[in-house]
């Protein structure tokens, strides 16, 4: 785009308190720089009202495109209506728009249902390897639809493979600190649990801590979605057996690419689900896994 106008893209995150959304931002920022776009970032603090205000502020600032991790799918219709009116392209990252909506450029998501299914299968296998069929889950708050889809997928696998999901605990604050307490309570209430399904990094980090202090490393299997330097390290140490990588950075990268395409008249893909890749202790060192990891979090966050 030599000589052309510099485009500005705004990344509106549901909550930048959460590292996942920071990493989406990192990907978006990197890609924007690569494409010569100006990048700005806003935080909706999990409030749909703040999200709407942010969209309006972005329009006021004259942005050319928006990349959004919406607070929820249901919060997207009014945003889409507004942006359609203003003819501003929008790409979703992480969480897609409300089903039935069509006026958007692209939705770069992970297939949470399939991801949940895959991880459920993996966790159930971990439990069986350890001579049981009881599994526990540390979940994202179930008010998010990615969490609901993960759960639905996982339940389907557990049912199919004959595992019993004995308890689901949700962590309100999404902190490791809370997750440790919850994992401890889970293991106390259900001593026969043989594997734990972690739905996000902090949950798995907390569960790992609980396993370590109880001397249950390896005796209780553990897998998680997302992936972070901490969980990668735990994977290498064998505390975590499997990571279902969600390409946080990758979603940002693709979303920016899509709106750029829309601005420049190139082809766009409206539905762009990125696969969740399983990384295990044995394959984490492989170049493919390393390449995947690089699309999850930035180097500044920690080692791969």
């Amino acid at each position, binding site marked *: 785009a030599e000589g052309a106008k510099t485009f500005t893209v705004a990344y509106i*995150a549901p909550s*930048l308190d959460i590292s996942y959304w920071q990493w989406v931002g990192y990907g978006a920022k990197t890609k924007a720089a690569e494409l010569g776009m100006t990048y*700005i*970032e*806003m*935080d909706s*603090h*999990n*409030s*749909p*009202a*703040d*999200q*709407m*205000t*942010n969209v*309006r*502020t972005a*329009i*006021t*600032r*004259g942005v050319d495109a928006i990349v959004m991790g919406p*607070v*929820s*799918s*249901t*919060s997207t*219709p*009014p945003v889409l209506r507004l942006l359609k009116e203003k003819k501003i392209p929008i790409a979703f990252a992480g969480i897609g728009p*409300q089903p039935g909506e069509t006026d958007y450029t692209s939705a770069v998501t992970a297939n949470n249902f399939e991801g949940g299914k895959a991880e459920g299968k993996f966790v159930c296998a971990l439990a069986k390897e350890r001579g049981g069929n009881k599994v526990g889950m540390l979940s994202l*708050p*179930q*008010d*998010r*639809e990615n969490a*609901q889809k993960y759960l639905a997928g996982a339940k389907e696998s557990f049912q199919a493979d004959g595992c019993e999901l004995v308890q689901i605990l949700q962590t309100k604050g999404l902190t490791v600190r809370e997750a440790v307490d919850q994992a401890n309570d889970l293991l106390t209430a259900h001593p026969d649990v043989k594997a734990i399904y972690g739905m996000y990094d902090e949950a798995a980090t907390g569960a790992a801590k609980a396993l370590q202090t109880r001397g249950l490393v390896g005796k209780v299997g553990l897998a998680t979605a997302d992936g972070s330097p901490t969980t990668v390290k735990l994977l290498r140490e064998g505390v975590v057996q499997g990571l279902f990588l969600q390409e946080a950075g990758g979603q940002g990268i693709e979303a920016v690419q899509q709106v750029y395409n829309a601005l420049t008249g190139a082809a766009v893909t409206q539905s762009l689900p990125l696969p969740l890749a399983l990384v295990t202790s044995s394959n984490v060192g492989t170049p493919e896994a390393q390449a995947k990891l690089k699309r999850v979090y930035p180097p500044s966050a920690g080692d791969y």
Partner: protein
Amino acid sequence: MVIDQRAADRPQPGKRASLVVRLTRIYRTEIAIAMAIVVLLVGISFWSPYVLTWGNLANIAQAAAPLILMSLGVFLVIATSGIDLSVGSTFSLTGMVAGLCFSAALPWPVVCLISLGVGLAVGAINGGLVTVVGLAPFVVTLITYAIGASLSFVITDGHSIAIADPNFWTLNGGEMIPGITNFVLFCALAVIALECVLRKLVVGRWVFAIGSNDKAARLLGIPVHGVRFGVYVASGVAASFASLLSLSYISNSESTAGANLMLQAIAACVIGGASLFGGTGSAIGAMLGAIMITVIQNGVNLIGINSFWQGTVTGAVILVAVLIDRATKVRS
């Protein structure tokens, strides 16, 4: 006891000061905040040319509206030396109840009435526990806050709900008086009405009387329990109405919608000159406090300050505002 510094500039004996002088004295803090807001807007305009555009000011107003309404309710409670921590979850719960009602395809005015019942109920529970049972407001509203937040997840099993009613937006965006969008109208009406009630009606003075010295108020025959009950109900209803307004705007109800609002509403009242020990402040102050918070938020986004820095900037601006307020009070 907090002595009101405001009237420290003792008037001349023999004469009652003119209305303008008196208003300037009564609304000293409010005028200071209003000026601070203007300074802030002008300051931001050095970094961002958009801040003083019509569109952006409309954005600020729209973003501030629910917070203003909530702050007014919370202010009433604070003026009686109480506190209402439950407004945030009342906001969320109201939204979820409204969402469910919309799912049941009820017409929107009916939905509004039902949903206002949420605030009414929470307020009545708060008021009842505070007055009849005599528990501390902080404890009571902490409990209703926790329960309300929890129930707003429970009733839809955590799912957010998109509002499909094509007419509901008129609550917020319609123009009952042509040329004035409803949300502006509601806020203006609420502030003016409340300020008049507080300054001009007996019951308004009772609110301050109770916050000033509730034992004395009781001895003087002021219906302390009744008024106190009333302010909690008002606060609950205001939170519910704020929620409906917000819902009407974004057509989406979310269990976490109100989570950040409680502290913001209390902060708005305090920035606006209310003391948590009661007896002082004004509805106008609470409104200006809410606007100030919104303007800071808006400015941070327009300037493009890294969102991690937002809290620092907000905190620093509020600190400067209260320091200046303090300095002018000490000087006078």
